[in-house]
């Protein structure tokens, strides 16, 4: 296995003459629906956030109460935004890295359509009171089954692309893609069978649920996002990542710890002591792959002057990656977890991960392929860079506010001398400011939505 610069894979005419490559278009369509979910999910979470600051907001509207909005919003972001883009990204990148493409994307389009419809109906079911309070398992069975089938329809092509690759060797990027592709169905089947379809007894549910919810991030969205970063950086710079062996170590350490670190949320909770310890240790050791990825990427980026938009996305994405897992590592240290595990700091971890790391990385690839549909459109470029900056500023400021508020909240809630309602009073100003950060993030999401839909409209009106 030797590392070849993936840039060579970009030359035209890699596939048999007469084939047109359907994958950029597929990615465009996927981005269009996914960016819609990004906006929708963010709006739902912002409404929920307003309710925490002012509980009278929409009071009495049953389908718009906090406890239903939150699962709707998070599911929209994870299954609608992250996962849909991730699927298209897997096919697109495996094709670029392997120098092959697929003959027809008809099945994939059907799968995306079914996925979108199932998710929409599933969210309506949650709004109607069909949720179960288990994070990312709230979708009703018909929706999760449809999503799984749609996944299989796409993954078959992914596997074919990987098996049939014509560029020798594999790239760091493709390891992560294959890993995400393998983990997603396994996780979704396990989580749904054990907790929703044939639920196991209550005492066994907490560890499985925490591991599943963590896994959707750590073993599915995170690997695909890292794959995007490890693709974009060498691609844009025409330089390979630093040492190959270092990348290998980074990959395996990431997978090893990511497989367990969902348990880090259960430190001190109703799980066997060894599980809490493993959760803490693996969350903490995630620092190793974070450092390796940082060295690897910034080693290449250092001194570069080619700061294109996708490259900025990759750099910001790797920063958010580090922020997410460092904060999660601190939060899993037992005495820290004892005070802060259930505070707004945990929200900040989720926001940095999903809104920062995943959104910036996947958004980077979307912005990487969009120009080919746009014929040099200056407004599109502006929307693109607004998306980047508003996302960075929004996520950054909201995360800072949530962490500061969470620190006060944690201390106040562990102090026997402070009644609960006072702890709420302390965090309220921080929650209010964090909400402003979420609004900035929403504006950024709207820019991406506009850019993608303008490109789609232009493509539909005048196909290249």
């Amino acid at each position, binding site marked *: *296995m030797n590392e070849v610069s993936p840039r060579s894979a970009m030359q035209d005419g890699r596939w048999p003459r007469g084939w047109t490559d359907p994958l950029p278009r597929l990615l465009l369509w996927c981005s269009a629906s996914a960016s819609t979910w990004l906006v929708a999910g963010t709006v739902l979470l912002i409404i929920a956030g307003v309710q*925490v*600051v002012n*509980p*009278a907001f929409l*009071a*009495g*509207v049953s389908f718009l*109460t906090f*406890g239903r909005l*939150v*699962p709707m919003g998070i599911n929209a972001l994870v299954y609608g935004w992250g996962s849909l883009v991730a699927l298209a990204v897997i096919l697109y990148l495996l094709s670029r890295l392997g120098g092959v493409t697929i003959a027809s994307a008809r099945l994939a389009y059907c799968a995306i359509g079914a996925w979108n419809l199932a998710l929409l109906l599933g969210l309506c079911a949650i709004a109607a*009171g*069909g*949720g*179960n*309070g*288990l994070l990312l398992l709230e979708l009703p069975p018909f929706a999760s089954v449809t999503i799984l089938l749609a996944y299989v329809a796409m993954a078959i092509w992914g596997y074919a692309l990987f098996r049939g690759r014509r560029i*020798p*060797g*594999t790239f760091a990027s493709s390891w992560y893609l*294959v*890993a995400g592709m*393998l983990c997603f169905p*396994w996780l979704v089947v396990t989580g749904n069978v*054990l907790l929703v379809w044939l*639920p196991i*007894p*209550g*005492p*066994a*549910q907490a*560890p499985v649920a925490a*591991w599943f919810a963590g896994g959707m991030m750590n073993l599915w969205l995170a690997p695909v996002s890292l794959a995007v970063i490890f693709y974009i950086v060498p691609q844009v710079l025409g330089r390979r990542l630093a040492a190959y062996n270092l990348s290998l170590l980074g990959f395996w350490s990431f*997978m*090893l710890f990511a*497989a*367990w670190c969902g*348990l880090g949320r259960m430190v*001190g*909770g*109703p*799980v*066997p002591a060894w*599980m809490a310890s493993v959760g803490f240790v693996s969350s903490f050791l995630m620092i190793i792959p974070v450092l390796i990825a940082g060295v690897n990427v910034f080693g290449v980026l250092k001194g570069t002057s080619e700061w294109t938009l996708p490259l900025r996305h990759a750099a910001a994405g790797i920063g958010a990656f580090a922020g997410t897992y460092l904060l999660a590592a601190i939060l899993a240290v037992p*005495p820290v*977890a*004892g005070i802060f595990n*259930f*505070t*707004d700091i945990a929200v900040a971890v989720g926001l940095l991960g999903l809104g920062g790391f995943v959104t910036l990385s996947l958004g980077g690839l979307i912005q990487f392929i969009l120009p080919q549909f746009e014929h040099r459109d200056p407004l599109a470029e502006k929307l693109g860079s607004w998306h980047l900056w508003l996302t960075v500023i929004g996520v950054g400021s909201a995360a800072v506010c949530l962490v500061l508020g969470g620190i006060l*909240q944690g201390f106040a*809630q*562990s*102090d*026997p001398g402070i009644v*609960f*309602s006072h702890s*709420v*009073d302390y965090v309220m100003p921080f929650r209010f400011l964090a909400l402003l950060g979420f609004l900035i993030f929403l504006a950024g999401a709207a820019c991406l939505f506009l850019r993608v839909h303008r490109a789609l409209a232009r493509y539909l009106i005048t196909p290249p």
Partner: protein
Amino acid sequence: MNRTPAVISGVVLVFALAWLGVAMYSYMTLGYLAPVEDKTSGSTLPPALSGLADAGQRVYAAEGCAYCHTQQVRPAAISGDIEKKLGSRRTVARDFLYQQPAAFGYLRIGPDLSNYGLRARDEAEVHRLLYQTGSAMPSYRSLYILRSISGQQSAEALEGLRGSYAPPAGYEVVPTPDARALAAYLLSLKRDYPLPEAPLEKTK
């Protein structure tokens, strides 16, 4: 050259290990936990839920109360939960024996509810709490019915509602069956007995 298997089999191995360790281990051990005998009362612990409370936990799940309320008291060694009188011992897996789904909770935007049944005065208080908004707790007005009083006021009508929540003259607010089930569930949350793996802890 197709060195596919190295990545694929490695990832499968890493994942399978965690899958066996978390999912299968939990199922095979925690999944078979049984109630323990209580020598003083002759019954078993944790106490089974009443039919109404069992229905109530489904309302609790559907309304997503677990996104704001935990049901996890952590040991005194790492947290102030016990000192704070959230409970007299840590919460353990067996506490969820009759819970379906287990509402262990994610955040403490609201207070921990592991032992709410010990704090609550009566059912009327629970209904008032759910009907009106709190400092950060939304109103669950949709679990109640505002109706005109025909003849005598209903015995289960909510009393003492404040401000704009008070019904106009001639009207009353009564709980739906869902609200009554939810209240029964909340009042059943009492973990004041020791379990073999979790003796009562002393506060400092």
